[in-house]
């Protein structure tokens, strides 16, 4: 009987199919998201063309991901909970920003009962936002279809890119609880909200709606999504939910977040900025961010135009002056007059190489989305009681052919319960999404370790993270971030990127050191004053006893020593004042810079 049961699935699944999917499962795990996406797209394409071939079968994208969920963040039960929450919150924030809405998100995570998997709990995760809502027709695509995305390949700094994450969460819920995502959504135009369950049709990579009905919802617009999954809830630590939520609030100053986690009261973090981040507008590509093939392909979009016009129109930061510089660098003027579709490959190459050697303005700030020093400064105070902090927002620059902007915040916590020699807390962000796993392999951590923090007054063992009650937050924003894996856990670091992060950290450390110096001086002064008070009478009394001196001599000596050491204390006071002035100067400069920036932004608007 048992034998028959065991052999049943084998019979029902065609042998060839099993072989094909095994082959897919054996594919290298560490492929990048983009590659996985391309791979999946190729699979779909192959499905239609090669179905007639004997021995080779194809599977749907959904089938591929349902068998390889570990590649997209579901490799452990703890990660499953965090990834599900993360994908839902990312989608909410992206949707709000695209529509100019100040996001207000409510997160609920609770244990419902024992899970179906071994040693797991059944966990309910609900994320509700005040976003624009989803058109009922799009609901199955958003939650139930892989690679259905409004953001794929746009070259913008949005959190999500390919349209894999939330569908993967639905699949995980379906696999472990046999129920997909419960969605309630309402757009501004709708009178009633749509309530339904979305499931992934794994064989066909499409979303299927179940139990669809209309309900009243007091919200004018918004979406609520609920997953019932197997997993384990980890609240504390670097991989914990609290760390994720704290990080999310830090890099999203405009977010109001309500959250209710197990064994905790409902918690609200109010927004500190009322500006919705300006959605990076589509800019023409920057020549320094391209490879030769892309450069040639880009020309095909323009049809029969002159090369000069193509360069000026089709690229950002290329203008008349650039053409002159190209000319000086050896490109004949005749080339600019030629039609772009008549250009030979060798001419493209010559042009491309010349343009790479010409200094161009950095890519437009508009293509990367910065949080800004001012907003970060406000946001960092939401992490808890903080003694002092420093924030640095670097200018956008190019690393590995891609525009990138680094922002760093370093803060010292008032909480002294953390052991003094414990390493600092590191918060890593990629396009404003917290990264919480595989810290040691991340470019951000490498950059932090390469800085000599001792120079700024922090303790640091050799080639390690600095120590003490500090938070170091590093945000990397770029339309194209190179992740080490599809679950976007660590940033792959080129030397250029690590150096750029390092510079931001050094700047921030320098600013921080002024606070630390002032504090050291204040402590020194306090200790000196205490020394004078404590030791002067003891020293003089001891000397008087040994020399059998009279009371009048003793009195005189006491006055003398107080005078003498008082001078030392005054010197320290002066040093403290100097340290204080330096700090004031730095603060004044920073606020001046910020107000100047704000004025500029207003003028631009």
């Amino acid at each position: 009987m048992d034998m028959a049961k065991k052999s049943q699935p084998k019979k029902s699944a065609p042998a060839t199919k099993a072989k094909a999917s095994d082959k897919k499962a054996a594919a290298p795990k560490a492929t990048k998201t983009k590659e996985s996406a391309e791979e999946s797209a190729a699979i779909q394409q192959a499905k239609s063309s090669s179905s007639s071939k004997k021995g080779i079968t194809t599977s749907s994208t959904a089938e591929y991901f349902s068998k390889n969920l570990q590649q997209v963040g579901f490799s452990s039960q703890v990660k499953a909970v965090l990834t599900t929450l993360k994908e839902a919150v990312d989608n909410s924030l992206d949707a709000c920003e695209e529509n100019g809405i100040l996001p207000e998100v409510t997160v609920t995570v609770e244990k419902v009962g024992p899970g179906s998997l071994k040693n797991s709990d059944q966990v309910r995760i609900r994320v509700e936002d005040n976003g624009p809502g989803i058109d009922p027709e799009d609901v199955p695509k958003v939650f139930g279809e892989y690679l259905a995305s409004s953001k794929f390949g746009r070259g913008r700094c949005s959190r999500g890119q390919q349209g894999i994450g939330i569908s993967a969460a639905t699949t995980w819920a379906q696999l472990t609880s046999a129920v997909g995502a419960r969605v309630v959504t309402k757009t501004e135009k709708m009178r009633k909200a749509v309530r339904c369950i979305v499931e992934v049709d794994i064989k066909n990579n499409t979303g299927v709606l179940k139990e669809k009905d209309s309900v009243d919802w007091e919200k004018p617009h918004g979406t609520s999504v609920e997953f019932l999954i197997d997993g384990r809830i980890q609240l504390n630590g670097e991989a914990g939910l609290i760390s994720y939520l704290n990080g999310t609030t830090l890099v999203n100053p405009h977010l109001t977040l309500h959250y209710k986690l197990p064994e905790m009261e409902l918690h609200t973090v109010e927004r500190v900025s009322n500006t919705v981040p300006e959605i990076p507008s589509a800019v023409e590509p920057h020549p320094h961010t391209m490879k030769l093939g892309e450069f040639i392909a880009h020309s095909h979009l323009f049809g029969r135009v002159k090369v000069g016009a193509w360069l000026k129109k089709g690229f950002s930061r290329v203008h008349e002056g650039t053409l002159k510089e190209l000319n000086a660098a050896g490109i004949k003027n005749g080339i600019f007059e030629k039609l772009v579709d008549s250009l030979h490959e060798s001419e493209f190459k010559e042009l491309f190489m010349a343009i790479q050697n010409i200094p161009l303005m950095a890519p437009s700030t508009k293509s990367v989305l910065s949080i800004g020093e001012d907003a970060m400064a406000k946001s960092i105070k939401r992490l808890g009681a903080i003694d002092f902090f420093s924030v640095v927002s670097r200018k956008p620059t190019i690393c590995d052919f891609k525009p990138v902007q680094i922002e760093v915040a370093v803060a010292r916590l008032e909480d002294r319960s953390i052991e003094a020699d414990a390493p600092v807390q590191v918060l890593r962000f990629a396009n404003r999404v917290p990264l919480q796993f595989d810290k040691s392999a991340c470019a951000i951590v490498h950059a932090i370790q390469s800085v000599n923090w001792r120079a700024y007054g922090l303790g640091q063992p050799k080639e390690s993270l600095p120590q003490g009650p500090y938070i170091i937050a590093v945000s990397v924003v770029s339309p194209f971030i190179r992740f080490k894996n599809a679950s976007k856990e660590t940033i792959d670091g080129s030397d250029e990127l690590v150096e750029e992060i390092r510079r931001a950290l050094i700047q921030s450390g320098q600013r921080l050191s002024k606070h630390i110096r002032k504090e050291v001086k204040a402590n020194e002064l306090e200790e000196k004053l205490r020394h004078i008070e404590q030791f002067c009478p003891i020293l003089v009394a001891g000397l008087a006893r040994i020399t059998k001196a009279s009371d009048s001599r003793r009195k005189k000596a006491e006055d003398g020593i107080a005078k003498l050491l008082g001078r030392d204390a005054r010197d320290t006071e002066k040093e403290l004042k100097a340290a204080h002035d330096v700090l004031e100067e730095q603060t004044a400069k920073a606020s001046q810079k910020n107000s100047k920036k704000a004025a500029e932004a207003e003028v631009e608007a």
Partner: protein
Amino acid sequence: MSKNLMSSSDEIPKLSKDLCNRLLQDLERAKRPVLYATKCSLDNAIYNHKVGFFTPGSKKVATELNVSSVKKMSRAIFMLEILLRNLDTGAVNTKRELYYISKGEIKHNPDLKPLDFADQDESDEIIDFICELLECYREELNCYANDRGGQTYSQQLVVTETLPDGDKAVVDLSKLGTSPFQPKNRPQNLKLSAKKKIDFCLIVESEGTANTLVANGFTKRHNSILMGAGGVPSNAVRGWCKLIQDQLRVPLYFYGDLDAYTMQNIFRTLKAGSASSLIRNEDFSAPEVRFLGVLPEDIKKYDLNDYPVKENDAQEVRALKKASDAMKNDPFFLDKKNKGLTQILKWLLEHKRRCEQQAYFTVDPRDPTMPEKIIVEKIKRGDYV
């Protein structure tokens, strides 16, 4: 200060009072007191073979009273008071005991709480600081360590000790059997005399080997003093050797291992003192002591078992490194008079081999007195450096 060693019980309190008076006077005038202490390091060590030991140069370490040093200064005066009381009553203590005494004082007088020592290292540092200020030995402040080494055997030597209460204790070493006499605390308080003429004093690096020689009848056959140094000589051993040299005027010979560590850390300290004890070398070194062996040429002559310095023996490797430095900047080894010793050091550096004192036992394994015979023969022939 060391010249006045015998009368230090009067000298130290006077010096201390003078120092305190000067400090108090400066403070009365609101003038910043500065205290000077001798710099005890090799760069301030002078060696002259006519003097025979390291003497301090002119370099001083200045300690100025300021907000940062007021704590150390207050602690020093506090500890000085305890030490002066000991000198007054004749009580003696170890450093650890002084640490607890200071704890007790603070317990009974809460005003002194800020002076409290967190551990013995802190109080030890203050005691050493006082010694540097007064340029005196710890022993002169009645603070003694439990000195090791110095087990001495002789059939001729008689030691007379004057006790603090004035009583005299006379020890005839020939009456002790195989038990050794061991000098403690301040050997300078002892008077030495010889019942019969003593020909020489032999200082053996290993106390065990010294004991073996005596058990086999060395002191019965030779009119001598035989002493086990017990590794790096303690203050007691160094002072004891100096006393034998000065009071009995007998030649002294050192017999130990042939290696860089013995040459620099044991023999050189015994003969000329050390850089860290510049102010006390006068009473704690015996410049007339000669290096009897093991000499490099003995290896060939007696076919002794030697072996290469182990790469992983940290102490030996360090000693060799120190030896090459010493050849360049140690005034003792740079002095022409000590050329013979420098040659040995050079040989050790070149050959990277070592030979132990016990190797003499290989010469005739069936004759237990063979090492004795070799030693006596070498002394007779003048086969030493």
